[in-house]
């Protein structure tokens, strides 16, 4: 048969068909002989995890954490968003027991919104806290307070951070406790604390009282009154700043009431 006489369309179809067949066979063989057998439990554990991929467990995502649980015997109580429910399911599935870590929430330790803590100059650049910080140390007069350009809010997978009036605020009910925001803040204002704690010193300024007063109307001026009320170290002075020790339970309205600048709040 003279190849030139064959219909070119048919020839093309035949050629492509043949290539397809050969490749298909190769793939089928590869799937059979080169298959990687994954522990089926990894997939099942991953299904139990909430799939938030927040990274709060310090693994690269839920699937990675599942792998670590099954293969490396990682602790099973690291998933903050999952809470007790996921922990129970994991215990049942893996036949293990584990204490739930207390649920944590993020808190922004600054109360100086635009009305209370004035700005030194008008910043007109990239809307990012690290970028603003790099321009002459940030536009806020207080060198420690929240800049309000929302780097934390942008990274939060749960949409739990709201920027209102130039100040970031975490909504406790939405926060899944992943901790991603902590690293995002160039002024290290965000801390992870047990959700049950309700009394906070919303200030991180290490300036002395008179300097704080000029920069913010709700800053800690280091008067030490609160530390005297919370005299078991629940609130302790760290230099000129009162700091809550979140490991020690404390709930005394007096501390809130006696703070002259109202930087201690119940929330």
């Amino acid at each position, binding site marked *: 048969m003279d190849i030139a006489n064959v219909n070119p369309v048919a020839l093309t179809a035949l050629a492509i068909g043949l290539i397809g067949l050969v490749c298909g066979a190769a793939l089928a063989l590869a799937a059979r002989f080169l298959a990687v057998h994954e522990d089926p439990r990894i997939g099942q554990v991953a299904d139990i995890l909430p799939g938030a991929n927040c990274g709060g467990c310090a693994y690269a995502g839920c699937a990675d954490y599942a792998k670590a649980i099954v293969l490396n015997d990682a602790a099973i109580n690291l998933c903050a968003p999952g809470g007790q429910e996921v922990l129970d399911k994991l215990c049942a599935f893996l036949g293990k027991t584990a204490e739930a870590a207390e649920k944590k929430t993020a808190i922004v330790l600054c109360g100086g919104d635009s009305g209370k803590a004035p700005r*030194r100059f008008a910043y*007109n*650049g990239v809307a990012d806290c690290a*970028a603003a910080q*790099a*321009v002459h*140390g*940030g536009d806020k007069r207080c060198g420690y307070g929240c800049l309000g350009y929302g780097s934390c809010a942008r990274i939060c997978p749960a949409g739990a951070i709201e920027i209102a009036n130039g100040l970031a605020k975490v909504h406790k009910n939405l926060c899944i406790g992943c901790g991603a925001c902590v690293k995002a803040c160039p002024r290290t204002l965000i801390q992870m604390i047990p959700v049950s704690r309700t009394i906070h010193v919303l200030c991180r300024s290490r300036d002395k009282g008179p300097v704080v007063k000029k920069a913010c109307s709700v800053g800690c001026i280091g008067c030490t009154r609160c530390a005297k009320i919370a005299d078991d170290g629940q609130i302790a002075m760290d230099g000129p700043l009162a700091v809550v020790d979140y490991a020690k339970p404390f709930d005394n309205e007096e501390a809130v009431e006696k703070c002259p600048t109202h930087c201690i709040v119940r929330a």
Partner: protein
Amino acid sequence: MKTITAPYRIEGGVHPAYRKELARERAILAMPPPGLVRISMAQHLGAPAKPLVKKGDTVLRGQRIGEPGGFVSAAAHASVSGTVQAVGPAPTASGALAMAVDIESDGNDTSLEPGPRHDNWAELDAKTLIGLVADAGIVGMGGAGFPTHVKLSPPPDKTIDTLIVNGAECEPFLTADDRLMREQADGIWTGISILRHILGARSVRVAIEDNKPEALKAMERAMAGAEGDVTLIVLPASYPQGAEKQQIYGITGRETPSGGLPMDVGCLVENVGTCLAVRDAIVNGRPLTERVTTVTGDPVAEPGNILNRIGTLYSDLIAFCGGLRSPATKIVSGGPMMGFAQGSLESATAKTTSGLLALAPDQAPVYESLPCIACGRCVRACPMTLLPCELSQALEAEDYELADAFHVMDCIECGCCAFVCPARRPLVQHMRGGKARIALKRREAMQNNKEKG
């Protein structure tokens, strides 16, 4: 000695309004020592200096008050006589906090006995002279502040054959180097000769932009009798002609490799002010305690080139120039292209403060930045032949790997891209932020590797 035009043309660049007429005809004016000086321990690149004095100490002008904090570091000296009022963190021109020594002047301006004069420098060896330069706390006075004695001590496998002296002063508004060359050409030439002797450099190139005809003439006169391969280079005025890598290319045609230093291509670049400081240190035995700063801008009542004590507060400097006669919306330390916008006037002059610029409201408008329209103007303007548009978008998306692959680390932050961008994108701010982030990541990776062994 001969005079030629720069043989090579740099890539990109822009032509901003130079506005040098505000201060160029004002002769250098010495400002009397202010009541208080604030001397930062971080006036240079590298490790900050360590303060040697404490509150209450009395010091004399020229006394060493900060010792180098490492090899790449520089000493600091008191610029007035008086009492140390405080030692503590204070914002530098960039806004970062660094240790600073506040000295309250006693008004007598008593100097420490100057060190020995070395008129015989030609007979001294390089090591001795480099030691004297280090003792005087000299750093690059053009703006970057790299410690000069470190530059003068290249590792043994690098040879420097060409000493380039930078008198380009391509930043708009600034005229301090121009005045220095017009008024002190001989001193600068002595400094250059000392540097040439230290390096044993075969060739000397003094580069000045063609918009400074008087400075060109003055330097030509001072260099007339020079022997050997000495050339005065006339650069066509264009920004950033005075940037190190661009200048090396424009004069020698050598391209500094990515991430490399001038010494990798056998060059060393020093600013004219630095050369004068070297002369003062070696010949007069005086450490670096003063410099010329151009105080300028339309709102400044009496713009001028002010010889001020290092550590003079910006507020005092502006007051010495008659204050502001009209409102200023922006005050910039340095020039308008690469300087640092100030949040207040509390910072003080440093060894690197070439200018203090006040801008009127219409010169620093508040604008909204828009998405990139892909016009490519920034690409044409970039003297480092980068792709600023791509880089800024990668950085906005926090894709640091892509930005690194596109060589954001080679960005010299000259500002040409942002200057031409019709969408008013804050390109340089993106680059600065991205470079800082990538540098941090690299450091962390290095730390991790070290810990792993």
